[in-house]
Each structure stands twice: as structure tokens, then as C-alpha cells.
């Protein structure tokens, strides 16, 4: 039995979304002033309005991108490039598109450590905040552990401060409410392919009075913030996927939580020794990260894949081998745990049998190792 349990890496495209995309030829350059262009423009603006509503934003605050990596670059570089060696606060557990972007900048960056529960300490953030801090970039849900970061407390800590708050909400949307006003976001990034939409499209929310320096200059698209002819079909796909995810959020996330609970129950009933990484009570519905103290993640992922189970761990090097997880290293320091942990991420579409198959495969692997 083939079981895909890596939905935090990417999701399959929703059937309704795919159907809608097939029916649209996406013709017309939205910047053209003739009718073909205007039709395309109308579709994009309709999508923008719908999306704005879902996020409790106004449509002029939504900017389409090629995905979250671009969105994170746009937000971080767009702010940082306005200053000479700016002070920026982020966490050690961000996605590579945030961490590597910050590393490439001539900026003074404070990286906050995560606690063993998987969340950062807001007091540490308060202590590192300086008068000249210009940006705080924190993810809403960690992609490896699923642990939610204390965004509301961060927002409160920043309420009297001029620093902008950028939220990478890629792993949150569809699993919890993402309301830019409630979150206090000045900038917020989303990606379509993590919510059953197409790959290669996402968005950046930018609060009205936030100024960004554009990364891609061109023909004035996206209010001069992101040059390049808009990908009409993909933008419609993003909008449809977001609408679906919003409509079905409760049903989907409850099912994801059931799956996670079933998985943990089956694991507990088995002989397999394991520990959950981070506080399961603070984690989003679809992600669980498990430490198996008897085998390297590299071995486990190979053995699981050979058994038809697709999961993931840390980040892969280009030679296909695994690096220890930077997220777990932040939480637990240098330890075997960082090399022995696997992320399983679930979908509302999974069946009980699929969850059972994962645990059966784990039991087989463990049994073989103990033989």
C-alpha cells in the first residue's frame, strides 16, 4: 500500500480546482487595454477581492507571487533594503527561504531559539528588541514540528514599537483561521500548493502603509511591486484553493486531528519506542514530528519509502543525504534526536487504513532492526 504522509511538503491539487483551471484558457494579458486583456484583468481582480475577504484584508493589500519563497524574499528584502545594516529579529526555526535570505543580507540579525516545546520565548524577543529594530519575521506554524508560534504575544510586544511584523503563514492556512488584522501582520506570506492549489503561485499580504522596495522591476504589475505578466490561471487556482480551504477548514482540520490521534494511539500500542518532538498540544492539526531513538532518519526514510510510506525529515543535501534538522537543533541542542526524527504530515483525505499502514511499516522496520 502506498501512503503519502508528507502533505506539509506539498499537497495534490484539489479536484475542483484542477477542473476549473482546465476549463480556463488563461488567455489575455491583464495589462492590455483591449477586451481580451480586460477579461483576464477581471479574473485576477475577482480572485484578489475573494482572497482579501478570506484574510480580512482589502484587495489593494494582496500581491501575487510565484510562491512563499518569493513572498518571503519580497517582504524581508523589501524592508531591509531601505536601511543601512538594519536590525532584524527572527527565529532559528524559520524556513530556509527566510533564514538564507537574512543570511545573505548585510543586516544585524537576532535569531531566537526555540524551547523544547517547539515555540520561541516571547521574553527573549522582548529583550532583543531595540529602538532601531525594523523587522520581526516569525512563522505562524513551524513546518517541521507543526508547533504554533506565540504570534498574539509577539504582536502585543510590538504594539508600541515601529518594527514591522512579517508572518510566514504557509503551514497555517487551511488548518486555522488566518486573519491579518487579528494576527497583527504587516506582511504575511502564503503558498497555494500547501493547500491543494497549484505549485508556482502564492501571495504576499502587505498592509496599506507598509513600504517595500520591489525585487522584480518591470511593467508596473502588482502596483509596481512585482513586475511580470500575471499568471491568470494560477492566480485563480490560488483563489479557489483558498476559498475551498476556508469553507472546509473545520471539517478538514478535525479529520486531521483524528488522524494524528489515531496515529499516536497506534504507535503507543506498538512496541516501537518514540517521543513526540515539541508540544503536541501546541501543534497544528496536520503535522507531527517523532523521535525514533533507534535509527537514523536517513535509514528510516529509506526503509519507509521501500515500504511505500512517504514521509520526510530535516532538509536534504543535494547528494540526497540528510542534514540534521535545524529546528530540532534549536529546540534540543546538538543531540542524536536531530538525526533520528521523522515528520509525518497528514491530509483530511487520508483513510484509517492508511494510518494503520504507516504504523505497520514502522513495526516491521523496528522488528527487523531488533532481530
Amino acid at each position, binding site marked *: 500500500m502506498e501512503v503519502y504522509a508528507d502533505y506539509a511538503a506539498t499537497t495534490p491539487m484539489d479536484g475542483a480546482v484542477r477542473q476549473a483551471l482546465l476549463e480556463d484558457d488563461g488567455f489575455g494579458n491583464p495589462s492590455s487595454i483591449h477586451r481580451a486583456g480586460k477579461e483576464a484583468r477581471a479574473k485576477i481582480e475577482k480572485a484578489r477581492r475573494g482572497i482579501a475577504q478570506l484574510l480580512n484584508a482589502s484587495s489593494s493589500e494582496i500581491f501575487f507571487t510565484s510562491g512563499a519563497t518569493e513572498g518571503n524574499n519580497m517582504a524581508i528584502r523589501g524592508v531591509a533594503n531601505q536601511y543601512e545594516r538594519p536590525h532584524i529579529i527572527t527565529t532559528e526555526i524559520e524556513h530556509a527561504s527566510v533564514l538564507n535570505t537574512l543570511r545573505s543580507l548585510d543586516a544585524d540579525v537576532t535569531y531566537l531559539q526555540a524551547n523544547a516545546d517547539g515555540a520561541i520565548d516571547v521574553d527573549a524577543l522582548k529583550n532583543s528588541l531595540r529602538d532601531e529594530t525594523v523587522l520581526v519575521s516569525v512563522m505562524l506554524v513551524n513546518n517541521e514540528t507543526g508547533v504554533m508560534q506565540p504570534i498574539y504575544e509577539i504582536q502585543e510586544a510590538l504594539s508600541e514599537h515601529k518594527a514591522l511584523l512579517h508572518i510566514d503563514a504557509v503551514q497555517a492556512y487551511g488548518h486555522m483561521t488566518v486573519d491579518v488584522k487579528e494576527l497583527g501582520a504587516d506582511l504575511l506570506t502564503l503558498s497555494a500548493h500547501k493547500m491543494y492549489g497549484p505549485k508556482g503561485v502564492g501571495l504576499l499580504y502587505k498592509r496599506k502603509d507598509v513600504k517595500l522596495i520591489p525585487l522584480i522591476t518591470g511593467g508596473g504589475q502588482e502596483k509596481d511591486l512585482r513586475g511580470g505578466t500575471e499568471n491568470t490561471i494560477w492566480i485563480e487556482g490560488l483563489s479557489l484553493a483558498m476559498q475551498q480551504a476556508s469553507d472546509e477548514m473545520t471539517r478538514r482540520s478535525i479529520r486531521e486531528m483524528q488522524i494524528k490521534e489515531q496515529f499516536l494511539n497506534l504507535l503507543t500500542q506498538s512496541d516501537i519506542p518514540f517521543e513526540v518532538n515539541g508540544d503536541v498540544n501546541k501543534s497544528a492539526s496536520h503535522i507531527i514530528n517523532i523521535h525514533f531513538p533507534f535509527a537514523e532518519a536517513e535509514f528510516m526514510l*529509506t526503509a519507509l519509502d521501500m515500504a511505500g510510506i512517504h514521509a520526510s525529515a530535516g532538509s536534504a543535501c543535494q*547528494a*540526497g*543525504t540528510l542534514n540534521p534538522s535545524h529546528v530540532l537543533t534549536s529546540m534540543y541542542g546538538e543531540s542524536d534526536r536531530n538525526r533520528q526524527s521523522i515528520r509525518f504530515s497528514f491530509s483530511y483525505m487520508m483513510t484509517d487504513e492508511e494510518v494503520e499502514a504507516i504504523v505497520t511499516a514502522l513495526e516491521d522496520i523496528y522488528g527487523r532492526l531488533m532481530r
Partner: protein
Amino acid sequence: MNNSDITVVVGMSGGVDSSVTAKLLKDQGYNTIGIFMKNWDDTDEDGVCTATEDYEDVRLVAEEIGIPYYSVNFEKEYYDRVFEYFLEEYRKGRTPNPDVMCNKEIKFKAFLDHAMKLGADYVATGHYAQVVHDEEGTKMLRGIDNNKDQTYFLNQLSQEQLSKVMFPLGHLDKKEVRRLAREYDLATKDKKDSTGICFIGERDFKTFLSSYLPANPGRMINMDTGEDKGRHDGLMYYTIGQRQGLGIGGDGGPYFVAGKNLETNELYVVSGYDNEALSSSSLEASDINFINPVPETFECTAKFRYRQEDVPVTVKQMDDRLLVEFHEPARAVTPGQAVVFYDGDVCLGGATIDRIFKESKELEYLA
């Protein structure tokens, strides 16, 4: 048992030999799985793992022949068990053979264990050697291609290790393997064979070694005349019988390395290929491995270095040492290298050369 019930993990390096190995096994119906070993870290200062072209080739070939492929990282094991040994041998002035150690400790230990834990029945590699499994156990035979035969490097493998090994190229010659790669149109069909030691690659050996071990220049002495022949760059850079890189020639030359004195840091050289100082009649060896049982004393043939013609010897086992007497004098036998024994085409095993004698006098190859 049907071949499809037998799982074979192929060690795929991204070279033509292991590519053809995987293809042959797949065509024979085995449940074939390719695994790439990353044994050496060439990550740069920025922490970026360099794009490994070899892994790219594994990916291409695995996709072409339709088998699953994975990676495994043995950098730590390789460093601890092969590279540390390699450095230690050079520190002692010896000439180690990291390929022998890599086969013993990594490819047919760490990797074999990994494959077995993944549920493999056998591990296969593209080595030019043959294994025969029968009632009496496992034998290792030379590869059919005499020019490519790699049993020399596999001499330290145990019966236990070899019992789980397949060498599908052992009955082919290299030309045939290339021809098959072209016939199957594998991505690696025209890829150049790798040469030299894997972790050094195309880099200059001296530069590489000097970044790990301090070079200690000293004097070169003509062993026969006592004459000072100038400066050497550090004893570790030279091996017994070596001619190149001495920087001396002209009158009386060519010169050859005939010994090292670690105490005085002197390099002994002699004039003439056939110089008596390079000639020996027996050796003493340790790290003994016999693949199949052998008598306490026996005659067989042996190699003292890779690709050398076999020479007839008498082997005497003395506790944890071997005394190997040559029937004809041998030239430039080198401490640290392997001595490997053969009975016809059967590789009996081998040992590591420690001391070299002429009649009963120990040579000053390493003083």
C-alpha cells in the same frame, strides 16, 4: 525462489560499472534498489553541500532502468575508520591502501549492514571479481578481465561478508561493460573512470596530504655511497621504489627511493632500477584474513601491489603474523600495502605488509 523475491541493494557510485551492475540485476529480475554512498564531505565554508554530479548520475541511471534509488551518508564512519587509518599510516612513514580499508569497513560493513537492515538479501557492487556461493561456503575468484581484477582491494573481506555479496561484472571485461552501457544507452555510458583515491580526486596528492599532516623536509642520502643528494619534502610523500618527484637525476641516475629513517628524517635513495637495495626475499605481515581455511604452511602465488604479476611464495602462519617467503627475489615491496594470496584464480585472502627481509636481514625500508 524466484529472483523477484530476492532484494539486491546495489552500491551505485554514479560510474559506468555500478550503472551496468544495476541494469544487469534488474534485467535478471531481482528486486533491485540503488543506493549512493556519500563518504566524504566536500561542503564549502558556507555550509552548502556541493552539487554532487555523481548523485545526479545515479538519479539518471536509476530512472532509466526503473529502480528506486536512495542515498546514505557514511562520512563519519569513513573518516573514523578509513581516513584516520590513512593518516596514521602516513605518520608512520608507510604507504597505506585506503581502498582495501574502505571495502573492509565501509562498502562491505557499514553499507552492507545498512542494506541488510533495509531488508536486502544481497549487496552488489561493480567490482571486477567473482563470488561463488556453494555448499562449502563462498569463494572469491579473480575477475575475468585480468587487467581490471579488483580482488587485491577485496582481500580483507570475510566469508561472512562475501556470503551476502554479488559482483555481476566479474565475468565480463571492461570493454564489454562499456559496450553494454552504450547498448543500454545509460547516462553514464561515456563517463570517465575515476582514478586515484576517492577523497583526493583530481587534486594534487602532496597538497592534499600537507593540509592534514605537517611536512618535515630533510636530507636525501645515497644509501650506497653515503652521499648527500639534497633535500626531500617530507618522508610521507615517498614510497619504496618511487622514481618520480625526487628532483635528482643526471650522473649516476636514475635514482629510486630505497628507505626512510623516521628518527633522522632521512630519505634513502639508490641508483638504478635493479639496485640490490630494492630487492627482498621475504616479508612479515599482520591483519591476516583468509577467506577459506588454509593449512599452517602452504605454497601459493601472491601480489604485493595492485596489478603486479603474481609471484610464487611460501606462506607460514605464526600466531597473528604471517611469514611470506618469495621463491624469486621481489622488488620494492612496500610496508603498509597489502599482500594478497591466490590459488589459481581463487583469492585466498591477504594481510598488511609490515617488515621486509633479504635473506634473514631486515631491510631498512622503514627504520
